[in-house]
């Protein structure tokens, strides 16, 4: 028996020393020390050993088991160390496989950012009709028929034959501001509303004009809203979109639905204010018309102007996308060409 044990130990040591990897080592551990391992079986046979040799046998068996256990763990460490210290040529520049992933449109990406910024400020998103009435698009915004400011928003008229819609009163909306009247008329203040969407204006198409473009209208109505809140909101939003260091400046303007009226200029992100073809040499880009909501607009929507007032603004989403990605031709956004789309 003692001899058998010694042979077994030698065999185990030889196999362990000669093993090539940790998997083989684990198999050897199971073969010798596992539940049905050779040493384990020997333990069961201890009763067959003559009584006078039993003690010596027992000691040798235990020593062997410990020695083999240690050998396995030393060998394991040695194998890991040799792997760890291995220095073969390995090409880290080998490209990965190309994923079959598509691309989100830049308008979607920027709009998601805009929505997130405003959600954080407590604005809710509204979505409204693009086939709109003259009333909500103009009159409810204090722009009566024949008002000269309609010149800047030349309008598409919808052929209403056979539709039940009113001729001449049914148009494609020229501004997302059309939703001010709709939301205010049906809802109750206070409001913090954001309306992203597509608008239509009769324009001949060129690099900087399109007859379809995207805007995000926003407005707030509450009991104590100030012009400084409008300035603060615009600065915050543009800072989030273009970085806190971006420069903005405000100018007076006139839209019939605001008083006082505000225009926002953003330092051209392309030339950093030096003047380039993108900003027509001015160094500034007109980006966000705004103002305090005109009392007539609130009154027409049934809001008590003694209690409530507010501000409104419109973000030229197409323009922000263009500034963000330095796109010079507006038509780029509506051209479904993979050479364009795969860049985003």
């Amino acid at each position: 028996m003692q001899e058998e044990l010694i042979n077994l130990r030698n065999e185990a040591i030889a196999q362990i020393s000669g093993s090539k990897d940790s998997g083989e080592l684990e198999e050897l551990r199971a073969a010798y020390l596992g539940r049905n391992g050779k040493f384990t079986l020997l333990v069961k046979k201890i009763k067959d050993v003559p009584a006078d040799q039993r003690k010596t046998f027992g000691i040798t068996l235990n020593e062997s088991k410990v020695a083999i256990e240690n050998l396995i763990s030393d060998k394991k460490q040695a194998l890991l160390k040799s792997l760890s210290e291995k220095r073969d040529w390995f090409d880290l520049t080998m490209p990965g496989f190309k994923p079959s992933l598509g691309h989100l449109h830049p308008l979607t990406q920027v709009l998601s950012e805009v929505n997130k910024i405003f959600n954080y400020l407590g604005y809710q998103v509204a979505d409204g009709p693009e086939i709109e009435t003259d009333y909500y698009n103009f009159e409810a915004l204090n722009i009566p028929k024949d008002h000269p400011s309609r010149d800047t928003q030349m309008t598409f008229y919808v052929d209403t034959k056979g539709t039940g819609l009113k001729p001449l009163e049914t148009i494609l909306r020229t501004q997302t501001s059309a939703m001010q009247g709709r939301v205010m008329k049906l809802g109750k203040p206070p409001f913090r509303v954001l309306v992203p969407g597509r608008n239509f204006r009769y324009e001949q198409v060129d690099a900087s004009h399109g007859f379809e473009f995207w805007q995000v209208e926003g407005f707030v109505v509450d009991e104590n809203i100030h012009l400084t809140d409008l300035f603060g909101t615009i600065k915050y939003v543009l800072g989030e979109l273009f970085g806190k260091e971006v420069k903005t400046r405000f100018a007076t303007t006139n839209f019939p639905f605001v008083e006082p009226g505000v225009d926002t200029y953003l330092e051209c992100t392309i030339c950093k204010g030096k003047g380039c073809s993108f900003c027509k040499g001015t160094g500034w880009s007109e980006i966000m018309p705004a103002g305090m909501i005109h009392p007539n607009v609130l009154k027409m929507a049934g809001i008590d102007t003694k209690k409530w007032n507010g501000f409104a603004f419109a973000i030229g989403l197409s323009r922000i996308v263009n500034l963000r990605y330095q796109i010079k031709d507006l038509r780029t956004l509506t051209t479904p060409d993979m050479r364009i789309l795969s860049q985003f």
Partner: protein
Amino acid sequence: MLIPISWLKEYVEIKLPLKDLMWKMTEAGLTCETAKKVGGEVIMDVEVTANRPDWMSILGVAREVAAIQGLKVKEPKIGNMPSQTANFPIDLMPDYRLFERWTGIVIKGISIAPSPEWLKERIVSMGHTPINNVIDITNYVMYELGIPMHAFDYDEIYGQVMNLQLSAGGEKFTSVDGIEYTLPKDAMIIKDAERLIDLAGIKGGLNSGIKETTKNIFLHVTIDNPVFVRRTSLAMGLRSDASAVYERGPDKGGTLKSLTRAVNLILDLAGGEVASKLIDLKEKDYEPTKMMLGFDKLEKILGIKIPDSDTVRILSSLNLSPKAVKTGVRCVIPTYRGDLKIEEDLTEEVARLYGYNRFPATMPEGRVSDEKIPYFFDDTLILTIKSLLVSCGYSEAKNLSLISKDLIEKFGLNPAKHFRIENPVSTEYEYMRTTLIPGLVAAVKINSADNLKLFEVDKVYLKSAKGADERYRVAGIYTAGSFRDFKTAIDLFSSRLNIDGYSVEFETDKPYLHASNAGSIKAAGSVIGEFGEVDPMVLGSLEIRGKVYCFEFDLDSLAGLSKFKTFSAIPINPAQVEDLTLTFPPKTKIGEVLKLITGASKLIADAELKDTYEDSYTFRIWYQDPEKTLTNEETGKLRKIVLEAVRSKFGGIPKD
């Protein structure tokens, strides 16, 4: 509006460097982005907003430039109206709905001649060609003071009568520059005893115009109804300096001053004498009005307290004669500031000259409403769908909503079911789309890639009983070849959005889809979308080669059917997995087979189609009992159930 600097300097000193002045003007609302050097003159180009007729004049701009710099404006020397020396009759028939004020006078014995150099230069600097002394003076005074005026040849006013009226439509009219027009209805016109002699507010007539031989003139300054001027000018596509001023509603209180200025200049440069009484027809007197600006209101709107003394100084610089009282400032609004109607308008005056860029930035206080707003829009589903499609390799396109009749017809659709635009920019963009598919299919042409995957999520515009039904859709096209790869995205809609009872119908009413290789998707009893191969005839008409698969789903339907998922705990016991290969007769619906296998027993946790080869299909099946590990015997029983069901329903038999 062009502003020659040397002319501006006649009324106001310019202390700021030009670039700074231009920005200050822009900040104050008189947008001035460019200034050009023309000859020895620098000419600013200002954009005048619709509310400021007074800025349509050099003097008006000078007033603003003075206010910005805290200076006083030097008014031009108008002089007094010279006295009358003769009595040439003239009979004006007013209509106050058309001309709110009509101020005029006759001058006799003038000599028409070229203008002196200084006057010619002024006219040239405004971008016009000098004509003669009288016409140049009328233009000069309009540019200077901001109200259009017109000179008639007195001897060409037949019967010495001027009848102001609206056109009936269809009248022929030849303007001073010799162009013949056919008038629309409701243009304001002046007729003498026999002829149409003036298209009021827009252009004078050739017949009554100033000629080299003209000796006597009738000169008038009128305040024309802005609505009629605007409608006529839009209808005729005819804009003039005068119509641009009238649309904004010029100073009703200023006609007399303008007339006096022009008469004095004419007597000076063309000779002659005043030969009639001064005529000044008006329904009422136009006087400055009073308005109060409360300090509280000012602070409430602006958000800061502007020192009362600053408020008074600013209002004074704008000639609003402010008088501070306890609660605010009493102002007197000159007649040329018709834009100042309510207190809010005065707050803007204070804010803009105080300087918008001096204001601090604050954030709104107040409540965030816990109620959903009307028209509330939740874009969660759209974003989920977009990210699903992007992960399937589809890229997002944005197409125009306006399409051509040609494209509609190529897709076999009926243009009459589409909303049409009355005044399209071109026939390319005349109709509103009712499906997103045509735009996406057309994109195949501009892409060279033969494995194109594009999608779009946007609105379509349907005619409905209530007028217009605008619905969001998601659509995609696929040219990469394999139907199963194309089908992946469609299957994801049901599995990831968790839509129950999702079935494929072998029918579709979409004329642009292939007769057999396309169908629709039904859920909860109604069709929610279509998918399949685009009809080769449609592709041929667009000169697109190869196969194009497409799909389109209605988003509201998807949103209504999409349910929250219920989590299933990870089973403690392992599943038994096996592959079964079966053969089927032709035209077997493998999708239905798979549904049958999955539903054959509660103990079948999942099944999928692993492989296909000719008529044989390999299904991988997961047998699983949540309570225990299934024995081989139990799995065998389940296999039997599956095989029996597939055989009896579809005639599928195991392949050995």
